[in-house]
């Protein structure tokens, strides 16, 4: 178990789903989770909880399994075809690895932002409305779509910049704008969790700051799990911090605590830059 977990009271989130069976504060709860790529075991008995409405960062050296864990939560890992798992991952109390779980609704309630901004080769408008239209089963009334579009782009502070070129291709935007767009396109379908896989690693410092501020702004309304290589980022922009090493969770505490008084020697060594 992640001993350091500090349960916090559930945040009353206006957008989050309300039908949770228990009063648990966890948006994501991973239990005894193991994962193999073919014969290679990448994750070992992972246990952790992501508190609802908070930003939790996952840190650790390259190859420690952070991204693998993140990509297991929306089961996008299974695209590879040679992935096996054991254990459970609960999303708002529901085991998403159970038999009969459909991937489409799962992925609508778990949004993912990738390391490299990956807008689709469509217009800005069609990008933002992509998931929305999927959830509505096709195009909807123009006025509704316009409103959804504007709200999503305003939320990520992009509306004023792109409102005059919504028909243009999204791939022509700057990397920072692309990454904000990739966040914006998740918002119309109100996912309960946002997974971010090093969302700033392709961005310059100024863009990184802008995206970090955006993440911090979305906190509360969304539960956010963010993989990062950037210690300063984890420290600045997260409430809780999970340190992983060799496919195992070493430590999980409040961010402030981890960077001041880490419980494990390995954690201390890593965050002070002695390895990794």
């Amino acid at each position, binding site marked *: 178990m992640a001993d350091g977990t500090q349960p916090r009271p559930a945040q009353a989130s206006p957008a989050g789903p309300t039908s949770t069976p228990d009063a648990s504060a966890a948006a994501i709860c991973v239990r005894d989770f193991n994962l193999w790529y073919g014969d290679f075991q990448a994750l070992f008995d992972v246990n952790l909880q992501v508190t609802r409405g908070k930003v939790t960062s996952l840190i650790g050296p390259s190859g420690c399994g952070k991204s693998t864990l993140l990509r297991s939560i*929306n089961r*996008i890992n299974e*695209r590879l*075809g040679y992935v096996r798992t054991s254990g459970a991952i609960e999303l708002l109390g529901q085991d998403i690895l159970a038999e009969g779980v459909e*991937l*489409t*609704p*799962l*992925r*609508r309630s778990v*949004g*993912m932002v*990738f390391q*490299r901004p*990956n*807008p*689709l*080769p*469509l217009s800005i408008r069609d990008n933002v409305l*992509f*998931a929305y239209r*999927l*959830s509505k089963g096709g195009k909807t009334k123009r006025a509704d779509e316009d409103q959804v579009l504007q709200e999503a782009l305003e939320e990520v502070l992009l509306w004023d910049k792109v409102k005059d070129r919504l028909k243009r291709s999204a791939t022509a935007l700057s990397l920072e704008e692309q990454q904000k767009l*990739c966040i914006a*396109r*998740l918002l119309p*379908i109100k996912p309960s969790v946002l997974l971010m896989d090093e969302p700033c690693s392709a961005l310059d410092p100024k863009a990184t700051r802008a995206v970090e501020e955006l993440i911090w702004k979305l906190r509360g309304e969304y539960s956010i799990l963010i993989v990062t290589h950037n210690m300063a980022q984890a420290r600045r922009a997260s409430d809780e911090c999970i340190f992983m090493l060799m496919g195992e969770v070493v430590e999980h505490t409040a961010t402030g605590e981890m960077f001041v008084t880490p419980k494990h020697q390995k954690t201390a060594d890593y965050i002070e830059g002695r390895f990794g």
Partner: protein
Amino acid sequence: MTSSQPNRIDDRLDAAWIWDRIARAVIFLGGISAIVFVVAIFAFVAKEGLGFIFQKLDLGFFFSSPEWRPAQEPEPEFGGLALIAGTASITGLAMLIAVPFSLGVAIYIGEFATGKVRETLKILVELLAAIPSVVWGFIGLTILNPIIIDLFDVPVGLTVLNAGIILGLMAAPIMTTIAEDALKAVPDSYREAAEAMGATRWQVIRQVVLPSASKGLVAAILLGVGRGFGETMAVLMASGHAINIPTSPFDSARALTATIAAELGDTARGSDHYKALFSLGILLFLVTFVINLLADVLVRKGASDRS
């Protein structure tokens, strides 16, 4: 620079330098010869046919009359409409068969099949592309012909339908290969992004993959059309080779290419008939050239759009 005199650059000509020059020369010759041959072929065909086209051939008659009587005495008739209609109808029918078939196979190989199934299918498709056209013609003549006669209760099975099916099957493998390349060129991050937003496999293909591969797919179809226009032997054997503007798939027809192949051996070199056949060759050359050029432009445009 492992010389014992570190202050001087060793400028002796060694074996590597000589081989480099030889290899460059050979590769240059190989590259340039492709251009030379194309130009030479065009010059030869033009020399034999172009003068005839401008001086003797009545172009209005050629494009409006189905009367192809090149050996008629005293006045031969060179009406190309039946031949053009034959080629167009056979190619058109072939594409009706080949386009859905090849796109379906390409989408299956590119987007659904994995591992051994995928590799096996790719090898099979390439094998199919390597079957000589005379073998296809043979299949049309001996297998498809009786099947069509039995199935549709028609007197002759060597028809536009027969040639169209054979040509469609012949063109499909190369179209599949090119279409699959176009699908493979779509970055996987697009698929991943769409799937992570809850799109089903079909939604990903329909809304993301096909639109971004569209130019390459059109190019694949155009190359298939070019292949259909140029195919000779199989069409000659399966179409019935009758001068006739086909009004139904059960009519026999005759293609431009088949006409050249069947008649050129019987003509006197330099005669009007001989030159008329070269005029058909120029027409074919122009059509396939334009189609290939169009396909090439689309493939390049598709590649530059993605970057």
